[in-house]
């Protein structure tokens, strides 16, 4: 934002072409080689995990996954155990998968909306102290999650009381209603980054657009819905993907607020339990890790286009 003129929401027509030219100049043969080396380095560990998850237990533990190429032996046994294992501890992944979905969807929607509202107010509604609030929200990114667990848990289990006066009762949630606690917690923890990111996008929008709408007599609600939202849709996708990955992969928040039973615990909790009391059960860990990886991977790959477009739209200009 310092040396670049404020980027418009849309990419300038010539920019792509120019960028390609920058690229061409740098991508000599050596450059391609370096790029390939990086790509291979980055992919190999995951590939190794995937191959290992398909190998028989005794082989995983005694030989490296690359020996597959000289002695190919594959089995789906590990996946069978993880997904449909008959012991309540090794299997029943399906129920936990549903928990993960039930936890993730609202935990992405709420922060998206609240962060977008707040970012809009901080970017386009002129009022005193908004810089202060923005800085405060930004700074909150650093509050370590671990220190917030106890106060938030007592907020749920004991409510809010000031000097003995009960301002808010305890939540007293049972069964599936406990999901609400998890949604609440994830929403709290996601807001600082969400506001930071969306504010960056929104403050980049050309002021003339907003001003024009205002001259036409549109209120903030209308401007937000009709002008701003469509323009920041890619940014929302970006934040949404980040938040999805974060919630889906989270273990700590789920452990505290969702508990560890199949009633409400997500897959990560199940995976951690599957690591088991018996240590390096590589065959279960590799297969389990891969199962939990499939959905975020699919979501990311299918949303990738929006994601990149969101970043392209100039939102990352600081």
């Amino acid at each position, binding site marked *: 934002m310092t040396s670049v003129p404020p980027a418009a929401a849309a990419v300038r027509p010539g920019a792509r072409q120019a960028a390609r030219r920058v690229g061409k100049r740098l991508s000599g043969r050596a450059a391609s080689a370096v790029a390939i080396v990086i790509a291979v380095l980055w992919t190999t560990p995951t590939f190794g995990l995937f191959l290992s998850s398909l190998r028989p237990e005794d082989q995983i533990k005694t030989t490296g996954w690359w020996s597959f190429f000289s002695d190919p032996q594959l089995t789906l046994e590990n996946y069978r155990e993880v997904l449909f294992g008959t012991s309540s501890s090794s299997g*029943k992944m399906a129920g936990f998968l549903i928990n993960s979905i039930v936890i993730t969807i609202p935990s992405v929607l709420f922060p998206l909306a609240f962060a977008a509202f707040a970012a809009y107010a901080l970017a386009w509604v002129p009022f005193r102290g908004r810089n202060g609030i923005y800085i405060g929200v930004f700074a909150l990114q650093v509050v370590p999650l671990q220190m917030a667990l*106890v106060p938030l848990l007592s907020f749920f289990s004991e409510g809010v009381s000031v000097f003995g006066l009960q301002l808010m009762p305890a939540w007293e949630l*049972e069964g599936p209603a406990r999901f609400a606690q998890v949604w609440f917690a994830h929403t709290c923890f996601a807001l600082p980054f969400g506001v930071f990111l969306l504010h960056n996008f929104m403050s980049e929008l050309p002021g003339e657009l907003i001003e024009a709408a205002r001259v036409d007599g549109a209120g903030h609600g209308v401007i937000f819905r009709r002008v701003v939202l469509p323009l920041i849709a890619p940014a929302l996708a970006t934040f949404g993907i980040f938040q999805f990955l974060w919630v889906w992969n989270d273990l700590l928040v789920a452990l505290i607020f969702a508990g560890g*039973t199949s*009633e409400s615990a997500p897959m990560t909790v199940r995976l951690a339990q599957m690591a088991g009391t018996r*240590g*390096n059960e590589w065959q279960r860990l590799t297969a389990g890790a891969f199962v939990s990886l499939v959905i975020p991977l699919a979501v990311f790959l299918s949303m990738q286009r929006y994601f990149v477009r969101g970043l392209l739209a100039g939102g990352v200009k600081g």
Partner: protein
Amino acid sequence: MSLLSRPARTALVAGTAGLALVAAGCGSSEPSAPAAGGGTSAACAPFEKFGKHDGKKVSVYSSIRDTEADLFQQTWMPFEKCTGMKITYEGAGEFEAQIQVRSDGGNPPDLAFFPQPGLLQRFVAAGRLKPAPAEVKRLAEQNWSPDWAKYGTVDGTFYAAPLGASVKSFVWYSPGMFKEKGWAVPKTWDELMTLTDTIAGTGVKPWCAGIESGEATGWPATDWIEDVLLRELGPEGYDDWVAHKIPFNAPEVVAAVDKVGAILKNERFVNGGYGPVKSIAGTAFQEGGVPITEGRCALHRQASFYANFWPEGTTVAEDGDVFAFYLPGNDPAEKPVLGAGEFVGAFTDRPEVQAVQAYLATGDHANARMKLGTYVSANKGVDIANAQNPIDRLSIEMLHDPDTVFRFDGSDLMPAAVGAGTFWKGMTDWINGKDTTTVLDFIEASWPAS
């Protein structure tokens, strides 16, 4: 998985019904029906004394997970059915930390199985736990030796009855290998060292060990130290050391640690099957003794529960693939036993919670649990015939023997900052190359001031 697959399979039919119950038991919407007809039948007679608690719920939290947790839940099913209550069980690897978070947050479970009396004390001191009801106290006094009951007692008030147990003073070996080479099970420490030397002479590294255990890395090494300290200082001296009446860096402690070091830090003696001394720190404790089955190591000091960690197909018996002997001391007549176990602490005192507490303290519960799979308890009501393997039987015999001097794992009794912190860390550093004095000075300095 390996050893437990057999009992797990037999229980499968019964288990499926239970699982459906767990899955369906989403609380409010599901009236708990099963108790309706069962109350009067003969099967329920043993549970009558615990009363009827239709539709009540008790939550249990512990560090026991996986297959062992399944077995506990199966054990409780008849109890649940007959009393009409439902026990929601949750096991977590992060138990020690999570229980603190939940309790601080005002959302503790009804019952928790504390593996560390020290942790139990901390919760009592903070006023979080309820004293055990009279019936539980009576059962505990009837079923456990005073040595055990005292670990559930804080400042004269009885809080928690013991549950399971493990015996730590074991050295695992291969009876076949011993027979073939003509080695005898040593009766004294000197014999043990002579044997060690003999084995090293044959080109095999005699000992193998592994102390890696995630954030708990180091605990198997602290067990080693405790076992030797218990023999060197005697039970009273050991108690003084645990209570910090003897400093951590006192000369006698240094001597004991060096005595262990003569084995664990000697490149000739360790780490069979894994490499140099340092490989001990990187080897998972679950895999520490496995080289014995491959003939690449002869001795492995680890608790009775190590029976679960042998590779599938390994028979645990005096004439089988592996077995264990008592880690000897200087005097063959003195046989103090180091061990550990869980204690059932209660955060609430509702009648149904106390009923579960009482049930868990009975011999019936211990026996029912033993029938399902490997399990050791110091509960005197346990019938040794129910033991699932010879090592369980041996452990129970040792625990039941009135002449046995039993001492609890010291690191579980100390303040957690030491017992689950600097002691583990210090011993890991010690294995990884630091010298004894440096490490013990470091641990001593970390002991909380108050």
